[in-house]
C-alpha cells in the first residue's frame, strides 16, 4: 500500500510519530495523480483519446509547487518541535466551486474560466488553518448542475476509477474520483440534491451531506442557496468525522450557518449501535418517475443487488445490537424530485444573474453598443446547456402568472417532506428512529453517455438523496458492497437535524461489522 492510499487518520499517526514527512505524503499524492489522472480538464480539449478513456481526470488544476512548499514548511515546524495544526500534512482537493484566494475558481464553466476570487471560502480556510494542504481543484458538473460530471465545460470529464467507461456520478464527481483513486484522502464537495452522496456511492467512498447550516456556505459558488450543503468526501467514516470536525460551525460571514455547538465527533465514533433504532422504508426501495410523454407515474424497484446490500447492512447492524424497524412510511419521497426541479431552478436562475459579463468572468468579444445584446451574447456564448436549461425553467416557474402553481406549490411539498422526517425521528412518536437506512442510489454508476441529455431521467438518480436537502437533515453515504457489475454500492443513513455524530457511529459500526467481507478487498480498476 502506498502512502497516498492511506486514510488521513493513518497518515496523521505516521506524521506525528515522524515515520513519514509531509513532503513524502504530498509527493505520493502527486505521483498518483501523474499516474491515474491523465490530462486535466480544459476548455479546448480537442478529440478524446484512448488514453483519455483510461484515466480519471478528477482535477482541473493541480497546485503542486505550492503544496510541496507548504509540506516542507510543516516538516520544518515538526523538526523544530513546533506546534502544528491537527490536520497538518493531509492533502485535500476542493470541488471547483470553493473560492480560494488568488486561484482560479471556475465552477467548471466557461463563464468563470478566468475568475480568480479575492477571498477564500470558510471550509477551505478552516482546513488550511488546521494544516491541511490543498493539492488542487477538482472537476464537476457545470455550476454543479448534474449527476454525472459530463456537463463540465472542462473536458475530458471525470471518470469512475472503478470503471473508466462509467460516470463517477455528480456533481461532486471530481471529488469522489480523486478520493477513490487515491489521489487525496480528503475532498470538499457540495450537495444540493445528493451531489456528494450519489458520486460517493458510485465511487465507493464515504460522503457526508451535513445538516443545512452545519458548514458555512461562505465562498462557495451557489446552486440553490436553500439546499446547498458543503461536506466531506473521504475513504472511511473516521476521516469523514475528522474532516467535518474541522469545517463545521458558525460563521459570521454566513447568517444561515447554525450557531449550534459542534460536538466532538471522534469521541462518540466508536460507541456502537446498541439500542439504536434504525428504520427501513419501502418508499426508499423503488423509484417513481413520470413518463415524459403521458405524465403517468411509473414505479421501478432499485437494482436488486443494491437492495440486498441495504438489507445486509441492516442485518449486520442488528447483530451488533441495533433495533431494525421495518415498513416505515415515507409517503412524500416520490415528490422530492419534482419539488426539487422547481425550487432549485428558481434559485439557480437568480443565482446566475450575476454572470452578465459586466464585472468579471467571460464577456463576449464582439463589441456591442446595446447593453441587452451584450448580456445575451455573453450568456449565450459562455453558459453550457445545463445552466441554460435551469435558467429557462427557473424563469418560467417563478413568473408572476405561474409561481403559485409551481414555485409556491413546491414549497408546500417541501414542508411535507420535512414532516415525513419529523414524524419518524420524533422522540415521542410512533417510530422514534435514530436513523433511516436506505440505498444511496437506485443503480450503480451508469455508462458515460447513457443518460446524459435526458435531464429528467438523470435527476432521478437523486431520488433517495434529495429528500435530505429538502428537509435540511444530515445524510451519510458509505460503501455497502460491490454489485454484480463490479461497481460499488452505497448505503445511506439519514438522521434528524445535527445528528451527524450518531450517523458517524452507526456508519463506523457498519464498517467494523463488514470489515472482513470479501468485497472490501476489491480495488478500483485504475489501481489494479
Amino acid at each position, binding site marked *: 500500500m502506498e502512502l497516498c492510499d492511506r486514510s488521513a487518520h493513518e497518515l496523521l499517526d505516521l506524521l506525528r510519530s515522524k515515520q513519514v514527512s509531509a513532503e513524502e505524503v504530498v509527493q505520493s499524492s502527486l505521483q498518483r495523480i501523474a499516474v491515474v489522472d491523465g490530462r486535466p480538464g480544459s476548455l479546448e480539449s480537442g478529440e478524446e483519446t484512448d488514453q483519455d478513456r483510461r484515466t480519471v481526470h478528477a482535477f482541473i488544476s493541480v497546485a503542486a509547487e505550492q503544496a510541496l512548499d507548504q509540506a516542507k514548511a510543516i516538516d520544518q515546524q515538526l523538526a523544530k518541535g513546533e506546534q502544528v495544526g491537527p490536520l497538518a500534512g493531509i492533502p485535500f482537493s476542493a470541488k471547483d466551486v470553493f473560492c480560494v484566494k488568488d486561484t482560479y475558481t471556475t465552477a467548471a464553466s466557461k463563464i468563470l474560466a478566468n475568475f480568480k476570487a479575492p477571498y477564500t*471560502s470558510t471550509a477551505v480556510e478552516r482546513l488550511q488553518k488546521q494544516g491541511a494542504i490543498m493539492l488542487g481543484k477538482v472537476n464537476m458538473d457545470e455550476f454543479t448542475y448534474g449527476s454525472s460530471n459530463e456537463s463540465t465545460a472542462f473536458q475530458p470529464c471525470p471518470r469512475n476509477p472503478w470503471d473508466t467507461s462509467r460516470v463517477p456520478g455528480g456533481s461532486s464527481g471530481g471529488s469522489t474520483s480523486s478520493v477513490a483513486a487515491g489521489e487525496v484522502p480528503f475532498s470538499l464537495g457540495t450537495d444540493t440534491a445528493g451531489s456528494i452522496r450519489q458520486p460517493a456511492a458510485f465511487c465507493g467512498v464515504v460522503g457526508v451531506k451535513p445538516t443545512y447550516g452545519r458548514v458555512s456556505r461562505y465562498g462557495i459558488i*451557489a446552486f440553490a442557496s436553500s439546499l446547498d450543503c458543503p461536506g466531506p468526501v473521504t475513504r472511511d467514516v473516521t476521516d469523514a468525522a475528522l474532516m467535518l470536525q474541522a469545517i463545521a460551525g458558525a460563521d459570521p460571514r454566513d447568517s*444561515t450557518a447554525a450557531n449550534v455547538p459542534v460536538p466532538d465527533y471522534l469521541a462518540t465514533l466508536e460507541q456502537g449501535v446498541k439500542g439504536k433504532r434504525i428504520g427501513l422504508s419501502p418508499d426508499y426501495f423503488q423509484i417513481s418517475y413520470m413518463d415524459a410523454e403521458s405524465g403517468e407515474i411509473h414505479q421501478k424497484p432499485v437494482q436488486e443487488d443494491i437492495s440486498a446490500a441495504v438489507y445486509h447492512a441492516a442485518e449486520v447492524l442488528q447483530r451488533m445490537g441495533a433495533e431494525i424497524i421495518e415498513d416505515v412510511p415515507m409517503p412524500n419521497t416520490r415528490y422530492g424530485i419534482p419539488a426539487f426541479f422547481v425550487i432549485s431552478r428558481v*434559485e439557480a436562475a437568480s443565482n446566475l444573474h*450575476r454572470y452578465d459579463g*459586466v*464585472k468579471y468572468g467571460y464577456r463576449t468579444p464582439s463589441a456591442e453598443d446595446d447593453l441587452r445584446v451584450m448580456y445575451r451574447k455573453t450568456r449565450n456564448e459562455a453558459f453550457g446547456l445545463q445552466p441554460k436549461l435551469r435558467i429557462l425553467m427557473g424563469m418560467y416557474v*417563478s413568473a*408572476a402568472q405561474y*409561481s403559485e402553481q409551481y414555485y409556491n406549490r413546491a414549497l408546500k411539498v417541501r414542508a411535507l417532506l420535512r414532516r415525513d422526517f419529523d414524524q419518524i425521528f420524533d422522540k415521542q412518536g410512533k417510530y422514534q428512529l435514530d436513523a433511516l437506512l436506505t440505498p444511496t442510489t437506485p443503480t450503480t454508476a451508469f455508462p458515460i453517455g447513457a443518460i446524459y441529455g435526458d435531464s429528467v431521467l438523470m435527476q432521478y438518480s437523486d431520488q433517495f438523496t434529495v429528500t435530505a436537502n429538502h428537509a435540511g437533515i444530515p445524510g451519510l453515504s458509505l460503501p455497502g458492497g460491490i454489485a454484480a457489475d463490479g461497481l460499488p454500492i452505497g448505503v445511506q443513513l439519514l438522521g434528524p437535524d445535527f445528528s451527524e455524530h450518531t450517523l458517524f457511529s452507526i456508519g463506523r459500526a457498519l464498517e467494523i461489522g463488514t470489515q472482513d467481507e470479501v468485497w472490501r478487498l476489491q480495488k478500483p480498476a485504475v489501481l489494479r
Partner: protein
Amino acid sequence: MTEYEVVIGLETHIQLNTKTKIFCACKADSWDDEPNTNICPVCTGLPGVLPVLNKAVVEKGVLLAKAMHSDIRMRSFFDRKNYFYPDLPKGYQISQYDLSLASGGYLDIPMPEGYTRRVTIHKLHMEEDAGKTKNAGNLRLIDFNRCGVPLVEMVTGPDLRSANEAAQYLIRLRQLLRWLDISEADMEKGHLRCDANVSIRPKGSHQLFTKTEIKNVNSIDNVKNAIEHEVERQIREVEAGNRVQAWTLDWDEEKNELRKMRSKETEADYRYFREPDLLPLDLTQAWLDEILADFPELPLERKARFISEYKLPEYDADILTGERNLSDYFESAVQHYAGDPKKVSNYLMNDILRMLNESGKTANQLQLTPTFLAEILTMVDAGQINTSTGKGLLEKVETSAKSPRKIVEEEGLGLVSDDSAIRAVAEKIVAANPKEVETFRAGKESLIGWFTGQVMREMRGKADPKMATKILMELLKK
C-alpha cells in the same frame, strides 16, 4: 368648466444614516469619496459571498415604523427582486416584498391653511440600494459605492390633494427622519428620494384615473414645481379631449420642465421569492423593547404640548419644534428658569437661531448651554444686568464657555445698586445743573428722565436706573 381634483401618492426612498452598509461592513456614506472606494466582494456581488444583515438598519426601520403608526411584524422576510442592470451587481436586489418589516400606518400633516391631511402608508420595507451608472461618451461608468447602502422604501396612499400638500408631507417627513436620527434626509444628496404619482379627476369622483410617475426630483421645491407642471399638463390634455397616458416622466431641473422617459404599458415581473441567503428576521419582544425604550416625543406632539404647557404662540411652538435639539434646548432652558417661557422663546427665536445659522452648529453643540441662557435671563429679571448686557453676554458665553455670572463679575458688567455710589453721582449732577433743578422745582417733573440719563451716562450705564431715579427725586424735592 369642469373642476378637477388632484390625486397624488408619493414613493419615498430613505437612505438610513447607519455607519455601515446593510449587508456588509463597507462604509455606507460615500458622498465625499471617489467612485468604487467603499466596496467589497459582498456589495459587488462576487460569486459565493453572502449577505449578513446589519442590525442597526432594522433598528432604524423599527423607529420609523413606530413613528408612522405602522404595525410592526415580529417576523418579516427578505426577498429577491430580480432584474438585470449593470449597476445591480447580483442581478437581483435584496428587498422585502409581501411580509415586510411593517404594514399600514399614517402621518398627519398640519397644513399652513389650518387643516390636517392624513396620509396613509401603504408599504414600508427595508432594502439595499443599487450603484450608479454614468454615461461618458460611449463609455458606461459604474460606481458601486452606493450598492448595499441601506434604504427604507415608504409608499403613501393616493391621499395628497395638491402639490403643496405633497411638499408639506416631505417637509414633515424630513423633520421626522432627522428628529429620530434615522436619516440625514437631504434631498440634494439623495438621502431622501421621491417619486410622485399624479393623476386628476373631476371633483366629486372617487375613481382613480390613469396616473403618471415623476422621477428624479431632488428637492422639495422641485417636487412641488414638477407636480404643478404635471397637473396643468394633465388638465390641458383632458380639456383637449385626450386621455392621460401612463408615462414615466423625468424632471429636468435646468429647463424647469418634464420629459417623457418611457410609456409604462406592462408591469415588470421581478420574480420575487424569499432570499435564501438570509434567515427570516425575528424581532424578539426584548429587542423591540430595547429599540423603543427611548422613543422620543414626536415633533407635532411636542408642538401641541409647548402650546398648552408653556402658553407659547403656535408660531413659536412650530419653530421651536422644527428640530429636536432646538426643542430640547428650549425645554431645558425653561426648566432652569423661573420666569415666563415666552421670554426664553424670544431669546431662542431671535438670538440663538441666528447664532446657530451663522455657526452651522446644532443647539446641543452650543457652549452657551440652556443653563447659561437661563442664568442670563434670571440676572436680567433681577436687575443685576440690563437687557443689552444680557444680549451681549450670549456671544461672550458662546466663545468663552464661561458662566455668565463669572463674565459679569470679571468684566464688571453688573448694575451698581449701591445707594452711596449712585447718591454721590446724583448729588454731583444736581449741583452741576442749577438751571434744570430750578425748572424741575418749578413743576416740570418730567425732567426727572433727563436727570436719570445724566447719572446713567456718568456711570456708563451700570447704575440701576430705578434706584437712580429714586435718589434723584429725593434730592430734587428737598
